[in-house]
């Protein structure tokens, strides 16, 4: 290798390219790339942009269905919800930046996913998130959760999109690598969706939004590498968000789209101007020529490399109808945003960049996308776990004592401290906000509502990735059903460790297979998603976390469900009874917090039962038989009932099981089951018999402020509420 080649090869390695990939770049170019070109290749071929380790497996997921307008591959997925309306949604991770700088990392995560949604022509109407932090008493956890929460709030609250739901988990495997996944959901007309494929050679390429600075340079590459103990030194690679600019950009883009001026549009997210220009050109099968001297910058002497790799926020690239350019300019002037023609679409299928009149980059577009590496990485099958012995798990303590430990535990206690920092009500269409099963948001101007949830039970996935993958979809499905909505489609965020390790790759491969099976059986195709790999610190991987974000729809929001238990109702379990299932405690929250025994097989997921139970609940909703409903998940039936009692401010008197072990029965984490409150018990029994759905009578609710079990155990709601509400702050603040 020549001296120049050697030097450039070292740069390539430092940018994350392998030797093989370096050689491939050189052969595509027929020469040694310059620094800018190398930067562009390494960003486009990074794990973050190219999905090179996961693509083979992502292709196996079901992406088609009756409701699907646009599956994976665009900025976000699009589904039809009837009456000419479409829902646009996607989830995305911002894990590495959020660990380094929690407030800005989380804020820009929200900003980025919102841009993905409004780029498609949709007005965002809801935000959700899925968060994983280290052990609750770890020295960094208080700082990280405070920063992430305030960061998510700062962006969502300011831009005026309600944060309506999410999940928070604490586990030591996230001590050095937290997970921050943000999901955005928007509403559009199904014939007014905007895509990123450039068209029309000669059409102007316009840069809009904020100016380009030196922040976040090569962030996509950082997000594709493992962490070490110097991670915090990478703070300058974290972008800084400006939600106010984001709001202006959103309003200006939506106004522009309404004016029919946009031909193609792409947000500048990961890898900034590089990925946006390359993707627009590649999808259109065309080329692009950009004069980098015209790019609005906020710092002087920026090099071509820096301009192309900057991840400054709140920027968009678009191809505009030339006849409409003046109108477009006026709209951006109104919103005081930069609007700058920086180049044009060409027929050359090359990306040509000019800087100070000279060619700074001249590379073919297709290899950047089509010839990006794709790996079939070796994967070892995960070990099959057997169920932990029940006798080792069940502890001889009163039911009410066990209940107190569980509802006060960091896994199950109230997340109020977190979600009260989010504006969950702006837009005034939130019917069910955080704290219930799925969130419900009205579709403005109609009777419809959209149900939204994010779910993943990481300890199940760790023990059995295939079953855990299925379970994540099944739980999301139950959450949507429990509010009375019909599940439609999902987006997923696959968070794993280093895929070059066969045991990690196995987690990915097997959980994707589980997600695939569940999505097929439950008819919820995958329309968008994101993969975050290399979530490791000092060689230690996180617990695998394939988050499922699901969207459902209901036609009349006035018929929506609630978890709030009304008084004087019969309480019944749908989906299990003592005979068919006495309660699954292996790898349960009970095993974790009461027996302190981790591991063992997670509860089996029977997708057919899941589907049957779901259809049964919806059928009961449509016949007005349900006054409150809640799915049974972490902590089991009695924790679910407690959440219902606290939400409704009503007590209950319930039956102690006769055949099953009471701990298994009350705290087992059996799947495909729900608790419902009804005043039409006979009708429910009749229907469950006809449908052959397991059914069990649990007891009756009343305005008495206590939970009473027929063996004589009793506990006041006030005591439960106090434990439930203070669980988080007590444990967090102790160490702050």
């Amino acid at each position, binding site marked *: 290798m020549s001296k120049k080649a050697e030097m450039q090869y070292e740069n390539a390695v430092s940018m994350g390219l392998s030797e093989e990939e370096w050689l491939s770049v050189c052969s595509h170019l027929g020469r040694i790339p310059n620094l800018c070109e190398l930067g562009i290749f390494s960003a486009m071929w990074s794990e973050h942009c190219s999905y090179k380790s996961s693509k083979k497996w992502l292709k196996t997921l079901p992406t088609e269905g009756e409701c699907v307008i646009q599956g994976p591959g665009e900025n976000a997925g699009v589904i039809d919800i009837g009456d000419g309306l479409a829902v646009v949604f996607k989830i995305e991770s911002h894990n590495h930046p959020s660990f380094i700088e929690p407030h800005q990392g989380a804020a820009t995560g929200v900003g980025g996913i919102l841009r993905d949604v409004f780029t498609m022509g949709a007005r965002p109407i809801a935000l959700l998130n899925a968060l994983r932090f280290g052990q609750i008493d770890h020295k960094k956890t208080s700082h990280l959760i405070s920063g992430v929460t305030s960061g998510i709030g700062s962006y969502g609250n300011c831009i*005026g999109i309600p944060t309506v739901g999410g999940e928070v988990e604490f586990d030591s495997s996230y001590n050095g690598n937290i997970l921050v996944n943000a999901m955005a959901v928007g509403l559009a007309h199904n014939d007014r969706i905007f895509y990123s494929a450039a068209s029309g050679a000669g059409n102007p390429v316009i840069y809009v939004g904020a100016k380009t600075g030196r922040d976040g340079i090569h962030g996509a590459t950082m997000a594709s590498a493992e962490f070490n103990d110097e991670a915090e030194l990478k703070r300058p690679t974290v972008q800084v968000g400006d939600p106010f600019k984001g*709001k202006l950009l959103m309003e200006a883009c939506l106004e522009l789209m309404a004016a029919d001026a946009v031909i193609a549009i792409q947000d500048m997210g990961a890898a900034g101007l590089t990925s946006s220009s390359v993707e627009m050109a590649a999808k259109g099968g065309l080329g692009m020529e950009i004069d980098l001297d015209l790019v609005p910058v906020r710092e002087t002497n920026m090099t071509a490399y820096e301009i192309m790799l900057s991840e400054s926020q709140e920027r968009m690239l678009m191809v505009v109808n030339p006849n409409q350019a003046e109108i477009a300019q006026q709209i951006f002037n109104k919103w005081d945003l930069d609007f700058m023609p920086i180049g044009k679409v060409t027929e050359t299928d090359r990306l040509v960049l000019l800087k100070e009149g000279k060619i700074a980059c001249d590379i073919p577009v297709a290899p950047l996308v089509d010839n990006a590496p794709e790996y079939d990485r070796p994967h070892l099958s995960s070990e099959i776990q057997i169920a932990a012995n029940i006798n080792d798990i069940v502890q001889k303590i009163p039911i009410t004592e066990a209940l107190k430990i569980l509802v006060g535990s960091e896994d199950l206690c109230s997340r109020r401290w977190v979600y009260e920092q989010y504006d969950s*009500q702006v837009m005034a269409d939130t019917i069910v906000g955080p704290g219930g099963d799925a969130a419900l948001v*009205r579709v403005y101007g109609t009777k419809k509502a959209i149900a939204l949830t994010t779910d993943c039970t990481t300890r199940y996935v760790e023990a059995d990735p295939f079953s855990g993958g299925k379970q994540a979809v099944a739980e999301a499905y139950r959450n949507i059903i429990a509010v009375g909505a019909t599940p439609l489609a999902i987006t997923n965020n696959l968070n794993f460790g280093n895929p070059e390790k066969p045991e990690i790759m196995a987690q990915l491969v097997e959980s994707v297979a589980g997600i695939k099976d569940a999505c097929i059986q439950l008819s919820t195709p995958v329309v968008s998603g994101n993969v975050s790999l290399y979530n490791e610190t000092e060689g230690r991987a996180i617990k695998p976390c394939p988050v499922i974000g699901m969207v459902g729809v209901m036609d009349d929001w006035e018929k929506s469900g609630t978890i709030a238990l009304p008084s004087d109702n019969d309480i019944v379990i749908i989906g299990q009874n003592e005979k068919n299932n006495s309660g699954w405690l292996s790898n349960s929250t009970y095993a974790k917090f009461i027996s302190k025994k981790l591991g063992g097989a997670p509860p089996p997921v029977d997708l057919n039962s899941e589907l049957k139970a779901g259809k049964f609940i919806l059928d009961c909703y449509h016949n007005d038989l349900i006054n409150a409903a809640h799915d049974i998940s972490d902590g089991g039936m009695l924790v679910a009932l407690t959440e219902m009692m606290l939400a409704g401010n009503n007590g209950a008197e319930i039956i102690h099981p006769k055949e099953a072990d009471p701990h298994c029965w009350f705290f087992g984490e059996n799947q495909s089951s729900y608790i419902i409150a009804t005043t039409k018990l006979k009708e429910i029994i009749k229907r469950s018999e006809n449908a052959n759905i397991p059914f069990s009578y649990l007891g009756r609710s009343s305005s008495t402020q206590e939970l009473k079990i027929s063996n004589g155990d009793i506990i006041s709601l006030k005591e439960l509420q106090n434990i439930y509400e203070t669980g988080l702050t007590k444990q967090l603040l102790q160490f702050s």
Partner: protein
Amino acid sequence: MRIAIIVFPGSNCDRDMMVAVESLTGRRPALIWHKQNNLDPIDLAIIPGGFSFGDYLRCGALAAHSPIMNALHDHAARGGAILGVCNGFQILTESGMLPGFLGRNQELKFICKQITLSVNGATNCALTGSLDHKQTLQIPIAHNEGNFFADAETLNRIESNGQVVLRYKSDKYATSSNPNGSLNNIAAICSLNGKILGMMPHPERAMGKGHESADGRKLLHSIFEAIKT
């Protein structure tokens, strides 16, 4: 009844307020962009919630210097009615149309939750006269800077003039009845003539049917009754 909603860059409750007004009056209010210099004759101007100019510098400080503000000052000088909600309240204090200042919440956190408010029986507010002073109101708050502050003399004057309209009363899940550290639990105040009302709670989020409460509707209704000409 002619109602206009003033929209600043960063306002984000303008549509919500428009929907709320329309549902009560049957007429869609005008949305007025902040760069406009003049205002057609109106009965009520509403400054909605949001983050005008990103809340940069100080909440409401930049909006207080927008072109539309001259027209609003003229409207106020003619005895016109103005309602400012949340960021709107902050803009009214920053522009000197209402006394006091809204600082950061005591716990230095954004707070979004349903809150119980009591109506001050001694208020001189000309816009909320038909509200029952014995009843409490359930209306949500959502802000980072709602901590009402005024020097002792100003506070005394506000209290003795009956300019306090609403106070925070209780909160199911918190130990303190005061969510943000406001002096005298103040949640809403009015001008000396009783025609300019600033409040931190969001009435447009408590309109009944789908919302947790319908008390915001009650409050807006009382305002619209008062400005009927």
